[in-house]
């Protein structure tokens, strides 16, 4: 697959996480919440629904050059949170690794999953 930038990786990771059974939604991180807080234009109620990738943070570690992806999700209570988190980690990792720019050798991607709510 074609390597993508951070935004593309976050979008792909969001789609992969949301496709896992037991994931109810993604929760925006503080970075996104603060950006929205600072710039949100007054609009009709309901128009500020965050886009899914707001619950994903992907960044390349300058020192090592490897990618780290953080997923913040709300999971359904009908499944053990640990099992859902494991599936999210695997699904996101297998989705993101082919998208990460590398020089010939596939690089491992660290995926951290944070369950922020159980609904």
């Amino acid at each position, binding site marked *: 697959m074609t*390597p993508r*930038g*951070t*935004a593309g990786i976050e979008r792909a990771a969001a789609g992969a996480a949301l496709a896992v059974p037991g994931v109810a939604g993604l929760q925006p991180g*503080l970075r996104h*919440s*603060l*950006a*929205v*807080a*600072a*710039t*949100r*234009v*007054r609009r009709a109620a309901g128009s500020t629904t965050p886009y899914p990738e707001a619950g994903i943070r992907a*960044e*390349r570690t*300058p020192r090592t*050059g490897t990618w780290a992806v953080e997923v913040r999700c709300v999971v359904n*209570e009908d499944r*053990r*949170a*640990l*099992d859902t*988190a*494991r599936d999210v*980690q695997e699904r996101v990792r297998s989705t993101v690794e082919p998208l*990460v*720019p590398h020089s010939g050798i596939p690089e491992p991607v*660290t*995926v*951290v*999953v*944070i*369950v*922020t*709510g*159980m609904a």
Partner: protein
Amino acid sequence: MALDDHRRATPAGDEPTAAPTDTDAAQLVGDEKLPCGRLISHVWEQARAGGEPDSHTVGCAFCREAVEGLTALDSAARTLRAVRPSAHLVADRVMRAVRAEVRLGRLLPLDDPVTELWVAETAAAKVLRRAADHVAGVRAASCRLTPDEGNTEVAIAITLAMTLDHPLPGRAAEVRRAVACAAEHEVGLAVSGIDLAVVSVLEPSTPMAAAEPMVRSRSGP
């Protein structure tokens, strides 16, 4: 673009030859070099020019990331210039966002050896309080979860209100079993210990009654 409204244009593909004199976000970081060796200012000038990126930029993750970040900043600056929200309004929104983050509580490791899977304390505590509430004559008042150092185990401390129509030790054991079961099978925590404190008495016919601390017990899961 908003970030460079006051900047001189620099031809795409050339390194800037002189430091810009105006102040904007791109200028503040312009002298910094990306890990690939390019100046951030050069990358931004190139993106601002709007032409086709050169062969280096096309394949460089660091350049692309810098452009994405500065583009987002540029968009935010444009919005702020157009809307001009009051400082009070922005401060309110920022504080709401920070409070929402703080309400999640600390992050606890799920029972995974790699420690890349976490759960927010409030999310896990809700499940454990409910497990305690399911024991007849018991209401959970608070639930604190503390990660142990050096492993992925978590210590649970719960305060309870109970009716006195049954012996407390037996009922506490029932609560402990219910909480341990929920921690393992609903959340996926490795529990190092469950500390129960009965802090209030429930009348059998009423939901709550104030009282003083009565019983405290602790054991493993």
